[in-house]
């Protein structure tokens, strides 16, 4: 039952068929019952008229007979009464059975001689006269006309039956006044009516079935293309754009099919155009990289050769060679960062996870960054609970994140120390890089990971960062399914926290290190 309900709710065809059949049921029911009531009224009317006509003729015949034998001998009268009873109850072949009931009422006729006047009261067919409606008998006694009534009467030897009773007052000579009733069985009539009823029922049911069938056929014609469209749309979702709807006619369904196919064609061409664009873009970036790198290599080598001989030049040329080397360094870093950003944008950045010791890597990064900070030496403290933290991640990317965070911290540390904290849990590892330098404005906090964004444009670029470092670091972290958070307050320094899953690609459950540092009042 439940399954049917679901089917009806989810299938358009079932829905239409069920509602059509239900509505048709109502219509068929109404017309059927109207037809039945008209037919049955007609049948009853005809039956009544026939029966009453026959009853009148029977009564007339009886009256006529009795009139003829007025004053005759008792035996003749008795014989005449018998004849009348036989004649009245005689039935033709296709007629229903008939019974008769004769009953004397009122004052009997004066007796002649010694014998009392004979009573011809009788009932045929085992009629139980007590079941006769008294109201009808009252009317018959007081009326000169034929009276009739439908009633249910009892029989002594068979079941109760619905009958039509027609009665009239009749006088029998030398005996008195009688009520004479003809009882017509309605058996045939009810048979006819039930026949009509059942044929109407069967016709109705057949009609309903046919309506259902026709609806199904019609609906199928409409629904099949819709189902087809749905199937093809699903294939589209799965990336197969080659499917098309079959269009075999020129009706609305064909219009749907054509519109659908047009849409598919347009989608397909749009997507292939975009794919093509993205391919061209990637290709372009790759070509640019190649085309730029070769001259850059020559440039770098040439500048190094000049730089290595700077002692023999006069001071301006010597300084120029230094600047040349430094700017080429910067140019190269910028090129690398731009290429990396374009790889992220094209979604072709690939994670290459290996097992390695994170603590070891970070210590090496700190050494390198320290070695590169020529002009000022800032202390970097590392604080970790365990000696080794083994993780599975893309070592080049993690190294790049750490270098970016460390050089960013040194850039803004204002000669104050930088603290690095490592906290490892069951499923993730967190690295906090805390400086106590210029800090970050609250409004700027959301923008620190934006490309080429600088906290203070007028500030000197001490280390010549590319402006892409933090943005790339964030992308690198997210590629691992990790996260990079920033905290900062003006004058209070900044805190960058990298959280990585211990196995790259798995989810991180929480933040082992909160971005808001512990050394800063929590309620401010």
């Amino acid at each position, binding site marked *: 039952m439940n399954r049917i309900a679901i089917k009806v709710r989810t299938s358009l065809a079932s829905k239409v068929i069920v509602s059509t059949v239900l509505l048709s049921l109502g219509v068929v029911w109404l017309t059927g019952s109207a037809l039945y009531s008209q037919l049955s009224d007609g049948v009853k009317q005809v039956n009544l008229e026939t029966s009453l006509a026959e009853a009148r003729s029977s009564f007339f015949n009886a009256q006529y007979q009795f009139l003829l034998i007025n004053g005759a001998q008792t035996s003749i009268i008795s014989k005449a009464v018998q004849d009348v009873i036989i004649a009245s109850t005689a039935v033709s072949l296709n007629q229903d059975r008939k019974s008769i009931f004769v009953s004397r009422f009122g004052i009997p006729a004066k007796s002649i001689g010694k014998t009392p006047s004979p009573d011809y009261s009788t009932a045929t067919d085992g009629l139980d006269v007590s079941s006769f409606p008294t109201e009808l008998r009252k009317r018959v006694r007081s009326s000169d006309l034929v009276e009739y009534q439908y009633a249910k009467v009892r029989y002594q030897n068979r079941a109760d039956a619905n009958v039509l009773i027609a009665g009239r007052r009749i006088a029998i000579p030398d005996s008195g006044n009688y009520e004479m009733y003809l009882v017509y069985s309605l058996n045939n009539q009810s048979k006819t009516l039930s026949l009509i009823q059942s044929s109407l029922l069967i016709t109705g049911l057949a009609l309903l079935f046919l309506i259902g069938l026709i609806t199904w056929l019609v609906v199928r014609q409409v629904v099949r293309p819709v189902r087809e469209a749905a199937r093809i749309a699903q294939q589209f979702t799965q990336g197969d754009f080659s499917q098309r709807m079959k269009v075999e006619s020129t009706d609305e369904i064909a219009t749907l099919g054509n519109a659908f196919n047009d849409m598919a064609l347009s989608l397909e061409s749009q997507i292939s155009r975009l794919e093509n664009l993205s391919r061209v873009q990637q290709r372009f970036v790759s070509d640019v990289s190649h085309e730029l*790198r*070769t001259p850059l290599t020559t440039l770098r080598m040439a500048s190094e050769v000049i730089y290595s001989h700077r002692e023999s030049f006069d001071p301006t040329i010597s300084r120029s060679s230094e600047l040349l080397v430094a700017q080429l360094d910067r140019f190269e870093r910028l090129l690398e960062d731009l290429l990396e950003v374009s790889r992220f944008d094209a979604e072709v950045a690939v994670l*290459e996870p290996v*097992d390695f010791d994170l603590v070891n890597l970070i210590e090496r990064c700190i050494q390198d960054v320290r070695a590169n900070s020529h002009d000022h030496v800032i202390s970097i403290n590392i604080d970790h609970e365990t000696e080794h933290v083994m993780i599975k991640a893309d070592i080049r990317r993690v190294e790049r994140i750490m270098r970016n965070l460390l050089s960013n911290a040194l850039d803004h540390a204002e000669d104050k120390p930088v603290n690095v904290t490592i906290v490892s849990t069951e499923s993730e590892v967190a690295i906090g890089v805390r400086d106590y330098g210029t800090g970050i404005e609250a409004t700027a906090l959301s923008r620190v990971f934006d490309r080429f964004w600088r906290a203070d444009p007028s500030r000197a670029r001490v280390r010549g960062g590319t402006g892409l470092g933090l943005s790339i670091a964030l992308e690198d972290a997210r590629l691992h399914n990790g996260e990079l958070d920033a905290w900062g307050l003006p004058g209070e320094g900044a805190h960058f926290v990298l959280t990585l899953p211990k196995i790259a690609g798995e989810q991180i459950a929480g933040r082992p290190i909160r971005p808001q540092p512990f050394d800063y009042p929590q309620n401010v």
Partner: protein
Amino acid sequence: MTLVMVVDDDQDLAEMLGIVLTGAGIDVDLVSRGDEVLEVFRNNPPDLVLLDVMLPGLDGIEVCKLIRAESMVPIVMLSAKGDTHDVVRGLEAGADDYMVKPFRHPSELIARIRTRLRRTNADVSGLLTIGDLSIDVTAHEISRGAKKIALTRLEFDLLVALAKEPGRVFTRDALLGEVWGYRHSTDTRLVNVHVQRLRSKVEHDPERPEIVMTVRGVGYKAGVLGGS
């Protein structure tokens, strides 16, 4: 004098490489087309080949395969692309080392070339064994029983590095320092590809190595005869 063949289609870069290498006391043979390499190589065999990947005539990868088919000479690939895919393709074609343009310093290039030309295991001599292989370091020969196995110099050096300290587990970084002469590098692709190439030559079943064993999460060590 050491002779290095520089194969690059960029005339200026080739000239610059020539200046730098000559300045370091290395003779240079310049070739600008991929399909000319083999002829020059046969006429005047160099001690090392510096090979660009993108070349007219014949692709650098193909050139690398052709040279490898007839010589064990050290090959250093120069590539403008640093993607793993490109690097691995070059190494699998038989390159010993690769450098992504632009190099940080010309000195870095020279250091790499010197490392490839030097006998890295000069301190070792005589016979070593690793698994069921015997290594004649002096004669530069590897054999399993009577059968000799041909290895490139780099593969030989890698195997000797492992064999001379049988109990030690080498991290990939340590191997990079020992065999390639890198100081600070996390480029483990180099080690992985070469270990695979070495295994395909010396192992009975490269899928289940017995000579160059993997120590999960750490690195590699030499296999012990009969043990696993």
